[in-house]
């Protein structure tokens, strides 16, 4: 292994306009050639341990505290696992549809937040634009209409979450075996009033993402891109389904690695590797091993993996998207933005479909069955496939929790993207500007990582504190 002590070190800390805290280190030799580039997740979370000993019905409310951006995903994934714990395999139509409405509201607000607030400054102003304008305030000044749309779309999704979960952040709506409330007629009508506007703005956002990708294809195509496997849930008929489905993994050419796998058996297909320089684990497909088994999740993987989307406008958009790569999976990192906006349009189409369904006003909310000792809940969170796995003892206490969070699955891909961009754009440059370093962040941002959710390798990587004197000599070292 090469000794890295003699290399020049560039640190980007914190990585900006992403959820959570992370840093990038780039090691350069004397000619400024990149020798190593890594994304480190420096947060430390311990939810898999906190939940042990707590009563199982607390899990959907407690574990969602992992995150303030997509807590609904954790809330629902944990609730799905707890449905099985209480012996319920199928919810009532009202409960299932209320949860789906909550989930699509979440997808809509999270994708809108990411696109308008976090990513759009790069796309609208350029990666090298002065940092003073390359931010959401700059967007508000130059494109006030877009800034307003971003805020209002996020608000719409958040209000849906409030109506279904009780609160915009960290609600309690999903309970083991069902939900604790339905949607009133007044609430329904409030959302229907604005749905045409939301749909129109979603179309506009999709057009921005699509046009950006196509018009800049020459530059975008190689940017942080690489071939990879893709993983997502799909419905029984192969349709995109963000709330429930079976696991499908495809390779970079679209060949199926596995398909329609019941996620209760995920451990037979997916495992995780711990590396000593990050709190985030590295999942991979077992049959391919850690070298080749890593995969991407999230909007790009979902649009690539599904056979079709069951809402008309999003399906038309998917076909346009797939046409760029002749129907083969799209492996461009920057295509995440386009795929994300296809899903945003899909979400608002699904929200309309649900709002027009009278089942949402039903009163049959919860089912009960025979208690089971183990439950696994998966769904497609905004950032990708989310795994929640629990074991519960006879006294109703959680004794084991395993979470594979979307961003964790994208750990290896993000590191590849960082390395690729560092090699292509930074290596060998005499002067390394802020704009060049932002290229690295642009690549990370495409994955919309939620770094706080993703770090929970508790007990696997000790905290190490090093005390170093002014000459760089280690004076003391303490580890947990």
């Amino acid at each position: 292994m090469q000794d890295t002590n003699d290399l020049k070190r560039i640190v980007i800390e914190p990585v900006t306009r992403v959820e959570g805290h992370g840093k990038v280190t780039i090691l350069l030799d004397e000619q400024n050639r990149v020798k190593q580039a890594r994304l480190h997740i420096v947060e430390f979370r311990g939810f898999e341990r906190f939940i042990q000993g707590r009563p199982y019905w607390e899990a959907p409310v407690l574990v969602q505290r992992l995150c303030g951006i997509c807590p609904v995903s954790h809330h629902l994934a944990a609730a799905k696992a707890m449905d099985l714990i209480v012996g319920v395999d199928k919810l009532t139509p009202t409960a299932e549809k209320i949860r789906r409405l909550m989930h699509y509201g979440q997808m809509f607000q999270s994708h809108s937040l990411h696109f308008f607030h976090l990513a759009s400054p790069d796309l609208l102003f350029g990666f090298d634009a002065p940092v003073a304008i390359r931010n959401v305030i700059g967007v508000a000044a130059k494109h006030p209409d877009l800034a307003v749309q971003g805020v209002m779309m996020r608000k719409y999704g958040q209000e849906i979450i409030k109506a279904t979960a009780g609160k915009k952040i960290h609600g309690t709506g999903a309970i083991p075996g069902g939900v604790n409330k339905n949607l009133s007629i007044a609430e329904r009508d409030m959302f229907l009033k604005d749905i045409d506007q939301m749909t129109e703005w979603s179309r506009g956002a999709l057009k921005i993402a699509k046009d950006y990708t196509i018009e800049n294809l020459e530059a975008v195509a190689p940017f942080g891109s690489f071939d990879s496997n893709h993983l997502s849930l799909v419905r029984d008929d192969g349709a995109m389904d963000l709330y429930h489905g079976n696991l499908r993994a495809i390779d970079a050419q679209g060949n199926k690695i596995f398909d329609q796998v019941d996620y209760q058996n995920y451990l037979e297909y997916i495992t995780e590797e711990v590396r000593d320089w990050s709190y985030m684990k590295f999942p991979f497909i077992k049959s391919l091993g850690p070298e080749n088994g890593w995969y991407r999740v999230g909007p790009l993987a979902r649009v690539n993996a599904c056979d079709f989307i069951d809402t008309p406008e999003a399906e038309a958009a998917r076909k346009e998207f797939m046409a760029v790569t002749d129907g083969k999976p799209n492996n461009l990192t920057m295509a995440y933005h386009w795929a994300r906006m296809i899903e945003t349009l899909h979400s608002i189409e699904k929200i309309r479909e649900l709002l027009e369904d009278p089942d949402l006003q039903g009163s049959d909310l919860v089912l009960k069955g025979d208690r089971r000792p183990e439950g696994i809940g998966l769904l497609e969170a905004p950032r990708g496939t989310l795994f929640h796995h629990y074991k519960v003892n006879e006294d109703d206490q959680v004794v084991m929790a395993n979470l594979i969070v979307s961003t964790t699955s994208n750990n290896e891909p993000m590191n590849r993207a960082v390395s690729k961009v560092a090699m292509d754009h930074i290596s060998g440059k005499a002067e390394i500007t802020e704009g060049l370093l932002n290229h690295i962040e642009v690549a990370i941002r495409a994955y919309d990582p939620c770094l706080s959710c993703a770090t929970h390798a508790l007990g696997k990587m000790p905290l190490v504190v090093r005390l170093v004197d002014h000459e760089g000599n280690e004076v003391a070292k303490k580890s947990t």
Partner: protein
Amino acid sequence: MSENTITFEIDGVEVQGIAGQTIMAAADAVGIYIPRLCAFEGLPPFGSCRICTVKVNGRFQSACTQPIAEGIMVENDTEELLELRRNLVDMLFVEGNHFCMFCEKSGNCELQALAYRFGIAAPKYPYMFPADRNVDATHKDIFIDHNRCVLCARCIRASHDLDGKNVFQFVGRGPQKRIAVNSTAKLVGTDIDVTDQAVAVCPVGAILKKRVGYTIPVGQRKYDHEPIGSDIEANKQ
């Protein structure tokens, strides 16, 4: 006016009560709320939490135990007493492990409701984060989370006085004081039943019925819209 009627003042307002009433009971009857935690209607006065501390003729007294008397001047809604009560609630929060954000009692919890009523956004004392509090989930229908117990003794008194049992008792002294069950085999070894008053009277999320969890949606919980004490103040004459 009967000869049993007693006239006195609360915060300068003349009120009347019946001989033998406590200050708290007399105040309740005329719609004046005196904050409380260990006091519970149907249980004898206990006077342990001191949240109901008032000043009677200038001296601190607990309103739940002090009987009314002719001509006494009671101070209740003053900045001095609010500060004292706020400090007591603050200390209860930091002494245990009270995580309202995921506690299923949230919205129905009297400790939390008092904090909201007193305008406590966060405790001013340092959290103690005690590590010695456990969860007893051995009973099939009830669980006790000692992290959230505020030692109000409602469960002890309700079990004894209302349920005719003796399930709970205090053990230890000072900072080591804890609620214990009358069994070496934890809650499962006692004769407690899920319908017992001892389960229903817990003001916080320490003694809970299993599998109820978050059945009541946010917005429909007891204190979601009106502060604690509003029901008493609604009777103001």
